[in-house]
């Protein structure tokens, strides 16, 4: 038995033990819940136990060795590297929001499933094996070695641009992860949002601070196991409930026709039509108020004031008085405020007045042209997500950690395999949960609403995650009376399915693991780019290995705190930009990476031009067409939404790279030799 095989056996044994202990922990908690342990305690125990677990793995794998710290010693077996990459990949968005997105958007949501899995074909075929063969430490490292240029041919300009790209892409992404950590921690343990953020941060730091890539890898394998268990158990339960088959990926095919039948039935239900009509009337009323501004704002304010006076005069009860006062305080302060508020309220009402779309129908639309626009947008989004996946630094840097080129190819296979275990379950969960809600909640009595609705509705009173209000006053729940936020679906699934609270805690722990594992990888990508590429390669090339690792750790700490601070500000604009990170990553890095391997003629000037052009085109399109960023949706090209800006950025980058490379001198002998080495088998 070789050393590598012994290493693999040992690791397998450890993780089997870990899985068994985790199972025992779940059973013990289930028994304790049966004995009457309060819910809050279960939440605390889950949070505490998992965070201690990650910290322990971090302490055990602590290291100050450069190769261990940056690339886990380049000896992670392909299977475990695949698992770790899968955990790196499955972010809070995948775990928490994706199933909800599929629930809300039906077929359109599947673009994320296709895009986020298809991207691995590009990683495997075009990038990962060649990165591994180059045996560098980071992505900027690879680009600098390949393209050279700058002072002494060390590639400083390309390196600096690649570092910038890594930071832009990874930072928006890591803020979103830390935000999710705060959200989950605060919901399940009742601590304050910012306390939740710093609790999560502590566990990220203990792990990556002490052991870098090595500690992160072994933590991520453990986190993947938790993510998988947490996602599968509630879905399997729903699957048995509705399809008598414990394998949800297979079973939900049988549920889809039943869901379609139920959807068709609800579509023509007179009560549903009535509720939708009421929302349309509300929207119309708001429209006419908007049209009559500022007179309508003046009249509205007088009305609110008059109500308050009336309550005061009639000596109304204290609660009536409070309600009237709140009405006055909440009333828009200026006509401009009123215009904004009423427009958003009108849009919300209009959205609820529209006829729901069938879940499985691709690109529904009133006519062929609008259906075609949806198809084109779906295709553009799929392409963008694929190209972006193949350019995310924290995923690509994982191909350095395997033992050989062949292992890096295998590792991508295992990565996609482990991702698919979750990603093939997500559409199943969306369909099963939708069927459950459509059949058991819709048509039930308002006096007998299940507990979970009140629980989730009360968590955020300003923007309720779920609201079920009797609009038409008939005492029965209509589908149009339910408004559900996509983010709540996965977290509430155990309660929707009637599972014990332990499973809710497990799902929260899974969401936490997904967010923490991704944040770990992203923080390491940023701090490595800063410490290895900026400090060691550009500022102080003579730094000792000890100093390099120390600097890296300090930078990690600094980046983590900046990210946590950014997340604690609840930046709505940053969160909406996470989708854009894929387009940016694709436009910035993909042309330089892929052509760098496959086209010998690509040179330093071309790479610079390609990265810059891709970035500028992508950024221009986003600013130009995204209303949140001050753009205008009417100026879209081919009606492609701004989230898919990479569909223009990548070709622009490729063209610029090719044209500028051909106009300037061919790369020198050293670069050619390096390329021959990268392409040659081991």
């Amino acid at each position, binding site marked *: 038995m070789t050393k590598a095989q012994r290493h693999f056996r040992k690791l397998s044994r450890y993780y089997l033990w870990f899985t068994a202990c985790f199972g025992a922990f779940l059973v013990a908690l289930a028994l304790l819940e049966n004995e009457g342990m309060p819910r809050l305690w279960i939440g605390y125990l889950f949070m505490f136990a998992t965070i201690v677990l990650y910290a322990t793995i971090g302490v055990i794998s602590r290291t100050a060795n450069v190769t261990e710290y940056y690339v886990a010693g380049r000896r992670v077996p392909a299977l475990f590297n695949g698992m770790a990459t899968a955990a790196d990949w499955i972010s809070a968005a995948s775990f928490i929001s994706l199933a909800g997105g599929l629930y809300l958007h039906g*077929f359109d949501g*599947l*673009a994320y*499933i*296709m895009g986020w*899995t*298809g991207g*691995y*074909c*590009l990683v*495997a*075929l*075009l990038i990962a*094996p060649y990165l591994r063969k180059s045996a560098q430490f980071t992505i900027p490292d690879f680009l600098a070695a390949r393209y050279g240029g700058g002072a002494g041919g060390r590639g400083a300009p390309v390196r600096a641009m690649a570092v910038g790209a890594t930071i832009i892409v990874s930072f928006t992404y890591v803020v979103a992860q830390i935000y999710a950590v705060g959200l989950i921690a605060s919901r399940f343990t009742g601590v304050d949002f910012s306390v939740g953020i710093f609790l999560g941060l502590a566990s990220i730091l203990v792990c990556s601070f002490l052991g870098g890539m090595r500690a992160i890898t072994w933590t991520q394998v453990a986190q993947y196991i938790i993510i998988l268990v947490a996602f599968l158990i509630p879905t399997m339960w729903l699957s048995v409930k509705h399809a008598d088959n414990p394998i949800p*990926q297979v079973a939900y*095919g*049988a*549920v*889809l*026709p039943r869901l379609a039948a139920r959807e068709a039935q609800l579509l023509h239900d007179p009560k549903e039509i009535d509720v939708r009509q009421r929302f349309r009337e509300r929207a119309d009323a708001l429209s006419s108020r908007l049209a009559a501004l500022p007179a309508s704002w003046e009249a509205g304010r007088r009305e609110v004031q008059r109500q308050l006076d009336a309550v005061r005069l009639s000596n109304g009860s204290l609660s009536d008085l409070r309600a009237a006062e709140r009405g006055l305080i909440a009333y828009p302060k200026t006509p401009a405020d009123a215009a904004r508020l009423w427009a958003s309220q009108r849009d919300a009402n209009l959205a609820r007045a529209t006829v729901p779309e069938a879940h*499985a*129908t*691709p*690109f529904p639309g009133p006519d062929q042209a609008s*259906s075609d626009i949806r*198809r084109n947008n*779906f*295709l553009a989004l*799929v*392409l963008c997500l*694929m190209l972006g996946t193949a350019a995310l630094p924290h995923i690509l840097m994982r191909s350095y950690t395997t033992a050989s*080129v*062949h292992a890096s*190819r*295998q590792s*991508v*296979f295992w990565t*996609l*395999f482990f991702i*698919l275990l979750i*990603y*093939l379950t997500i*559409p199943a969960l969306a369909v099963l949960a939708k069927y459950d809600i459509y059949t058991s909640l819709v048509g039930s009595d308002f006096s007998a609403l299940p507990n979970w609705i009140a629980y989730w509705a009360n968590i955020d009173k300003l923007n309720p995650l779920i609201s079920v209000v009797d609009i038409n006053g008939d005492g029965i729940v209509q589908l149009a009376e339910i408004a559900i936020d996509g983010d709540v679906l996965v977290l509430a699934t155990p309660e929707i399915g009637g599972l014990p609270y332990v499973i809710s805690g497990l799902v929260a722990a899974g969401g936490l693991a997904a967010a923490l594992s991704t944040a770990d990888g992203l923080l390491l990508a940023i701090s490595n780019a800063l410490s290895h590429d900026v400090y060691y390669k550009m500022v102080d090339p003579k730094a000792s290995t000890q100093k390099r690792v120390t600097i890296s750790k300090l930078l990690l700490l600094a980046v983590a705190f900046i990210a946590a601070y950014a997340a604690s500000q609840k930046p709505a604009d940053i969160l909406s930009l996470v989708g854009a990170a894929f387009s940016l990553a694709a436009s910035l890095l993909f042309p330089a990476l892929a052509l760098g391997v*496959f086209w010998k003629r690509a040179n330093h000037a071309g790479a610079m031009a390609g990265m810059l052009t891709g970035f500028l085109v992508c950024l221009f399109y986003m600013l130009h067409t995204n209303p949140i960023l001050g753009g205008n949706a009417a100026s879209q090209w081919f009606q492609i939404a701004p989230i898919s800006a990479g569909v223009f950025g990548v070709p622009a980058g490729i063209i610029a790279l090719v044209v500028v490379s051909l106009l300037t001198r061919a790369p020198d002998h050293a670069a050619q030799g390096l390329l*021959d080495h990268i*392409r*040659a*088998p*081991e």
Partner: protein
Amino acid sequence: MPIPDHAARRARLLAARAAHWRHARRVTALLLALWLATSFGAVWFARDLAQWSLFGWPLSFYMAAQGASLVYLAIIGAYAWLMRRADMRYAQQLEGAP
């Protein structure tokens, strides 16, 4: 006469490398074409595929939710396997020569 021998070995190495790279490019191009056809076909023809059904799924929904992803996994698996074979052939070529 060590010099011609060295030159011959070097020529053989370069020839083997070139053959390996040609093969790698062919495999990559073929699998990329399959990847593109799957992605494009599943989306572009989704409305036409919706009329067929597979164990309850409309075919277009199945392809987007599972089928395409499984094809991607197969592509990556095939790539790892084919390249492994090419690597071994390359090693044999170099060893087989004196």
